[in-house]
Every structure is written in C-alpha cells, then in structure tokens.
C-alpha cells in the first residue's frame, strides 16, 4: 500500500489522499484508533470519502502533514461484530434493469444482494446517507441517465460500486432495487444515523 498523501486545504485542514476506497476505509479506521488512543491532535471533523479522508479544524496542519506519510496503516481488518441488518422488499422500479445488467433472473437480485457483506465507506449527499461498499466489480451498475426528481425515503439503490438507502425523499439517480421501513436518520434518536462510516451492514429480503 502506498503512503497516504496529505494535501493542504486552507489554514486548518488536510485532505489525506490514498489509492482507493479500501485504503480510505483503512486510513479512517486507523485515524479513529489513534484518536481513541489519544495520539491524534485535536480536530473538529474526520470525514472519509471515496479516496480521501478530510481532517478539519486542526491547529497545526503542517505538523500532522509531516507525520502522516510515515504512518504504517494496516489493511482494514476483516469485519467483526454484529452487522446492522436492514430488511428490504426487493420490488424496486429498476429491478428489471439491474437483473439484466447482472445477467440474472429478477428474482435472483434479492438473493445475490442479500448474501453480500457491506460496510459503510463514507456518508454524504444527505444526513444519514451512507455509501456502502461490498458489491464485487461484476455487479457494479451505472447511474440512471436522467435522475428521478423524487425518490421515496427508504429506497435501496445501487450506483457504481455502491449501495445506499435514501434517508428521506430526495432527487436521485441510483438504480432502485427495493425499499425498507428502517429509519435511516432521526435527529431525535441517539445515534441519529443508523449507519456511520465503518458500520457493517447486511440486507435481508422480506415480504
């Protein structure tokens, strides 16, 4: 694994770039470990994304930037602990298209998707929207050419290497395979987000 590359972002942030999403997940896990161990300088935000982790609210970014490339970041450990289980009715509007792209009968999409192990790589787009990795490359699908103006809350969609669940009704271009009643985001709940970066997820076919 090549060394993480810190880029300066203004006066108080670093964007640490790595080679791929798996490396970003590993770096994020390492940062949380170091924060837990008290060996990380104080910061306001640790924001993982597709190939980067943003560290915002640092007092002295150059000092940390000098240190990070020397870190040995272990690969992401195999999933441990109980996953969050999301029950899904696999009856999404784009199920036929996904089945065609995967080369399987429609009824198989639920079986294939619910047999996979997912992990939240990062969140974004809306509070509580997680980008879940775990689809093998042959199951990656494109976005819709024209996004829908309204995707209902609880819709389970696929785009590129990711699976995601819409926490609320919003526009969206992901291919919809099903729907869940799980509440992905509730600011009155602790924690508000059902899924946070690093959370393991499994989908379970129901109804």
């Amino acid at each position, binding site marked *: 694994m090549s060394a993480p590359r810190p880029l*300066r972002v203004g*006066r108080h942030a670093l964007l640490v770039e790595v080679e791929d999403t798996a490396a970003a997940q590993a770096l994020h896990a390492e940062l949380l470990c170091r924060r837990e161990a008290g060996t990380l300088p104080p910061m306001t935000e640790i*924001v993982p994304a597709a190939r980067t982790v*943003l560290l*915002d609210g640092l007092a002295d970014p150059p000092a940390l930037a000098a240190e990070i490339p020397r870190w040995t970041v272990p690969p992401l450990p195999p999933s441990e602990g109980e996953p969050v289980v999301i029950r899904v009715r696999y009856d999404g509007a784009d199920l036929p298209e996904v089945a065609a792209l995967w080369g399987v009968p429609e009824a198989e999409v639920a079986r294939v998707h619910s047999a996979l192990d997912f992990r939240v790589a*990062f969140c974004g*787009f809306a509070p509580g929207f997680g980008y879940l990795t775990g689809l093998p490359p042959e199951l990656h699908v494109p976005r819709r050419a024209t996004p829908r103006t309204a995707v209902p809350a609880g819709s389970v969609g696929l785009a590129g290497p990711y699976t995601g669940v819409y926490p609320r009704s919003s526009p969206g271009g992901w291919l919809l395979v099903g729907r869940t009643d799980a509440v992905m985001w509730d600011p009155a709940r602790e924690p508000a987000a059902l899924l946070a970066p690093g959370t393991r997820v499994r989908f379970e076919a129901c109804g």
Partner: protein
Amino acid sequence: MSALTVIRAGALTTVQDLGRPGHAHLGVPRSGALDGPAHRLANRLVGNPVTRATLETTLNGCAVRVDTPVTVAVTGAPCAVRADGRPVAWGAPVRVPAGAVLDVGPAVAGLRGYIAFAGGVDVPPVLGSRSRDLLSGLGPEPLSDGAILPLGPPCGPPASVDTAPCPAPPADALVLPLLPGPRADWFTPKALTVLARGDFRVSSASNRIGLRTEGPTLERSVPGELPSEGMVSGAVQVPPDGRPVVFLADHPTTGGYPVVGVVPEPALAAAAQAVPGTRVRFTWCVQLSPSGV
C-alpha cells in the same frame, strides 16, 4: 416563558447559532450564522454567551412582537430599527417593552442582519444546535408570519456601550483572499491567473450554501470526474460550468468537483454580506509560479 410572535417574517429569516460541528462524517453540514462576528457581537451586546441563537435576516429584515420586556440588539447589515414605530439604535443594546413590535428594516448596505434577544431564541436544539440548515433541512423552519418562538431566561447584564464597532459590508468590491486548494493542479495556469484577475460578480443564485459567481469561467487541465471528497467552509469549488462557488455554512460535507482554492474562514463574514451584483476580487495569498500555484 417569554416568547416572540412573528409579525413580518421577511424574505428569509432563520434561527442561527454557531452551528453543529463534528457531524460532517454523517453528511451533516456545520451550518450556523453566516456572518459569525455579527452574530457574536449581537449576543454580547445583550449579555448572552455567543452560543445563544439569534435571528439571521436576509435583505429586508423582519418584525416580531415580544410578550415581555426584553433587551435586543441588531447587528450585521446596517438598517433602520424601530420599537413600536419609534426609531431606536442599531448596533447597541435596546430595551423593548412588553407587547411592542420590534421592526428591523431593509438593509441599507450588506445583506444579512442579526437580532439577538437577551436569553436567546430557545427553540429545541437538533444535534446540539438551533441553527436552520437549509441544505439538509435540520433545525427550526425559517420564520413564517404568525409563528411563535420561545425566548430563554436572560443570562447577564447587557453590554454598557452606546454603539459597538461593526465592520462595514463590502461596498465597492468583496475581496476574498485565497490559499491554493487541494485540486489547484486540476486547473490550467491561465485559469489560476484568471481567478486572480477576472471580473467576477456575486450571482443572485447565491445562498447560505454557497456564494456563486458570474464572470469568467475557469479551464481545467485535468478532465474527468473527481471521486467525492470532504469539503471545508471557504472551499472554492468549480462545477462543470467553470464558474467558481465559495462554500458557506450550509455547504455539502462532500463534493465531487475540484476545489481550486480556499478562502480563510475570517474572510467569509464579508462574503455573507455581499449583495448580488457586488464585484468579487480573489487574491492569492501566495506567489503564483509560472506553472501555477
């Protein structure tokens, strides 16, 4: 408990405090008062800690009736302030009697006003903040006519000043210092020069999410898509139309367009006060080398 009743909500009036930092990894913007110094000053004038919630008005102010005597202060964009029709001071603590209507008039310069009430606007916090986040819809709804907002108990004596120094909103031009962004190398050297020399204006499509610009477009040297990455306040993101957008408090936590530069946080208060049409001058804080930043 004391409360205020909204008589005239204005174009866009929201409850704001210092925002909800620490949740960006869940996709939650920081939000908070766009003109932080004006929000803090208004709170200090009425004897509040700076963490109390104020009202942030946009362009044409707002009017509220208070049901108990309360000390208020209006800062940010200069404007006429009246209590039951009588002119009172702007930028200073003012005692408003019970039942009086506080009318904060249209901005005579700048864009956003801040109204602090002794005790603060005491709506229930969401994730530790009372700020309305217009991107993700967290926090209390923007004010509407007839709405009733609770006020907290006063926390301390008001400041003993007649008038407080307030920075003037940008009149001729909004000058935004710029540090190189993490993706400055995705742009041509010419684009980096255009950014510093171009005739940009504040677009009327600007909002709490970002200050959008009209003017020259910036040309990229690296084509293609950027995988989504974390965004900071002040990031100058360049979407496919080439027109720079300066990210403000309600900006998305991640974005997929390259960031050419970053405006340091202290300069963003002025950006919050720049009315559409204002000239924008970006100035690099570092020397541009022949190959770029």
